[in-house]
């Protein structure tokens, strides 16, 4: 064994969490190796030039949940971090009208009043109530979840803090929180609003990436996850990183390398070396071995516990929990290169409505009907689409006058009943395109190129099991103190020196960097003791 293959820590997976963990460890002085299976870092946060001059955000497409601590502690600004504001949300309606929300509070109230005057002041109350719920739950999001079952003094101290924090909540805030944690976003919204388009706009955040409809219990929790995000301190708002989310991971990768981490591409880890209950290194597919007393898996729990190691090394309750852990990816991407901006008839030649998200989900009923098909193993023929014409936000994304449009598409279950994604891929693309053309007449004529990314493609390309964008469903039984399994939430594993820090751990999915940060903290703490 050569000296060159010996490291202090090895990170399996160069997605944003792996890069984050590697950057933190390297910054602390550890000789760190990050291994990425593909020819580029980023995992599901990549940008690819599929057509000369046209940059596609193949998978993840917006930035909101990246923890401010990660940005500050890794000094990402020094490495090119640049989140561009997405000031608007545009919601076309089926009758040709629209809801256009922007950065001005009073103007938004007037725009809402156009649809329902009573929903205008309801919006103020709703926003305030949500921000108070955020104030209450965010500390949980930003702390390592305690192990309720360990009896360890540190866990006990954390549980004491937790009970104290939960007990300090205002009556209404506690109740609102529980309603969101356990109920549907549709029920919650009905208490405030009457306008379909406002409810559709808000309810969309309750279904993103998850196999729930807005009327399902569980959609409230997904809403909470997405509302925890922020942009420059504005809760629930989103930004677009220069160059797409591939731009973010390039920045974190540069930071990791600047702090001394080594990133090795085209290096798929076959398995983790375990000797007598202790991780000692990894082996690549080509047989190359790297050795380190610390190995972090930044992959999802299925890979971490069932594929990278022999499950006989692990306790049965963990293996069973991970076998049971739901992935069931249900989201796809349909990305377009466009010859010109789409035209929305009611706004004539205006394009200022494209400075943020375009939400094709004009009512709760629209979303729920889309879910109906997904529930029974088929894709929605009129899907929910969360779109963004990113070339309006960043001129580097497309040649002048041309555009790239990213469309997050639901529902598209990983397992199709009676068919498969190889057969249905372009049919899904047609359904998305048809839907867009029904809101933007003449859309078909603008399409220069189309990329359809199904859950199967997400799994094959990024490794995310069943194409679940969160590294595992964001459902109550597999979040926070249960993510990925009860009693295994401290980023360690039963194998000494083997750690987990992918999106399948708390705080979970989206580009948060939270798991990567927490796992690096745990590794550094264990090295000191």
């Amino acid at each position, binding site marked *: 064994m050569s000296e060159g293959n010996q490291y202090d820590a090895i990170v399996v997976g160069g997605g944003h969490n792996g890069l984050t963990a590697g950057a933190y460890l390297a910054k602390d002085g550890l000789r760190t190796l990050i291994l990425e299976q593909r020819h580029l870092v980023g995992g599901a946060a990549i940008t690819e030039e599929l057509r000369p001059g046209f940059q596609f955000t193949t998978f993840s497409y917006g930035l909101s949940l990246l923890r401010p601590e990660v940005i500050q502690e890794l000094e990402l600004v020094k490495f090119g971090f640049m989140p561009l504001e997405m000031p608007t949300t545009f919601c076309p309606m089926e009758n040709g009208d629209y809801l256009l929300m922007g950065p001005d509070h*009073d103007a938004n109230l007037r725009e809402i009043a156009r649809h329902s*005057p009573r929903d205008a*002041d309801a919006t103020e109350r709703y926003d305030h109530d949500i921000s108070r719920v955020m104030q209450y739950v965010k500390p949980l999001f930003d702390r390592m979840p305690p192990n309720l079952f360990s009896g360890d003094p540190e866990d006990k101290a954390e549980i004491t803090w937790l009970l104290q924090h939960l007990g300090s909540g205002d009556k209404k805030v506690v109740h609102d929180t529980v309603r969101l944690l356990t109920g549907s976003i549709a029920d919650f919204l009905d208490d405030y609003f009457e306008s379909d388009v406002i409810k559709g706009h808000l309810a969309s955040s309750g279904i993103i990436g998850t196999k729930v409809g807005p009327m399902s219990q569980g959609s409230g929790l997904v809403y909470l996850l997405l509302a925890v995000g922020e942009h420059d301190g504005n809760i629930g708002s989103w930004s677009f990183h220069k160059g797409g989310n591939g731009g973010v991971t390039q920045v974190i990768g540069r930071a990791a390398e600047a702090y001394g981490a080594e990133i090795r591409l085209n290096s798929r880890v076959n398995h983790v070396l375990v000797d007598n209950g202790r991780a000692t290194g990894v082996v690549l597919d080509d047989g190359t071995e790297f050795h380190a007393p610390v190995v972090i898996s930044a992959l999802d729990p299925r890979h971490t516990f069932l594929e990278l190691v022999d499950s006989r090394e692990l306790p049965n309750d963990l293996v069973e929990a991970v076998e049971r852990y739901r992935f069931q990816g249900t989201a796809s991407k349909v990305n377009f290169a466009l010859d010109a901006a789409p035209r929305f008839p009611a706004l004539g030649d205006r394009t200022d409505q494209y400075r943020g998200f375009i939400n094709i989900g004009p009512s709760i009923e629209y979303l729920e009907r889309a879910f109906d098909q997904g529930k029974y193993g088929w894709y929605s023929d009129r899907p929910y689409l969360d779109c963004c014409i990113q070339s309006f936000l960043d001129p580097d994304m497309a040649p002048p006058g041309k555009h790239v449009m990213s469309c997050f598409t639901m529902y598209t279950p990983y397992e199709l009943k009676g068919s498969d994604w190889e057969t249905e891929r372009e049919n899904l693309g047609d359904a998305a395109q048809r839907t867009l053309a029904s809101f933007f007449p003449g859309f078909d004529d603008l399409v220069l190129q189309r990329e359809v990314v199904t859950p199967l493609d997400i799994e094959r390309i990024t490794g995310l099991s069943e194409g679940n964008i969160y590294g595992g469903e964001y459902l109550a039984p597999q979040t926070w103190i249960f993510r990925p399994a009860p009693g295994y939430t401290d980023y360690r594993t039963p194998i000494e020196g083997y750690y987990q820090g992918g999106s399948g751990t708390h705080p979970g999915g989206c580009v948060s960097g939270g798991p990567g940060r927490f796992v690096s903290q745990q590794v550094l703490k264990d090295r000191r003791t």
Partner: protein
Amino acid sequence: MVLTTPFHPRLSELNETGLYGHWAGYLSALRYQYSAKNEYFGIRNAAAVFDASPLYKYWIRGRDAQKFLEGLMSRDVRTCKPGRAQYTIWCDDNGHVLEDGVLFRHAPDEFLLTAARPNLGFLQDQVRRLNVEVIDASDDFGVLALQGPRSREILTPLVPEVAELSFFGMTPAKIAGHSVTISRTGFTGDLGYEVMVPAESAIPVLDAILESGAPHHLRPFGEEALGMARIEAGLPLIDVDFSSSRFAYNDDQRFSAWELGFGWTLRGIDDDSRVFTGRRALLRERDENTSRWSTVGISIAQTDYRALHEEHGVVPYMDEIPVDWHTMLYENSDWVRAGYATSLMYSPLMQRHIGLARVRPHLAEPGTIVHVEQTINHEYFTVPATVVPLPFFNPERKVSMA
């Protein structure tokens, strides 16, 4: 896109500055000429008009309209007879102030409420099982405030009934053939009227008033002059002097009706025949003497103010535009906190700095000295001020009948 009021086509022609703010989604002139002080003296010495159209407006109609408002509003609406208007506030269950507004009682079962913030959903939710309809009329009317000592002389030739209007009285009328409602109300603490006019009639009605006012130096005034006049009048402004308890994050950001100086609206609170939201908490606060604040006026000692600045080589500034932050007040020179001024300005009429302030109750007695924080040459100093009753300026003409 930002909206424009029904008067905008004409008033924008009179705006020499092109300076506008945004108010409730509408363009709202900050000032029409380069001197806001000149507009202010228009209010105090002649007459001036202000476009208050962005106010939210709600019809409250139905058999139970009075009963509805009795339970919601802190002030007793039963004392507001048809043909009268009433300034009012409404509170939450803890007696913390939500918002304020003016009720215009058009008929026994018909009120119009104006408010600075949108309230349709809130009001409709409060209806519960009563026979009441709340209808949004925000965009249906223009509101023109004609304020100042000459305002009666300007309006009377157009509407003779105006001569008979008492303070907070109102009357239907016609101006230039268009139906309007005129009330003797305003936000300047001076003699003045407000004309509520259907949006489509706004321009001819405005033109008639401007024409009648020309010999009296009638001019439009903007938000800045209004902000000066209302401080002298001791009128607190939502989102400046206080904000709705509904949008507070903690009780430090909430204030009871007593604490905000709205105690006068609670006349009759001991009358058990009227149950209203927040009553029990307000009674408890009064009986147990648990108010945390008193709202008072403060008047800065000008000689000390001048001396302090001159001592540090600075020309004392006398800016009539209110500062847009809260200024800390201290009990003594040991920096023991006394409270804070929520609005502070140099009053050109009073020739001194005045402010609306919240102080600890034991400091509320008129004549008490508090110390106002001043930053000079990037260092903190204090200057003494006297606690005075509100309003600062209260001319007899405001309420007199001639």
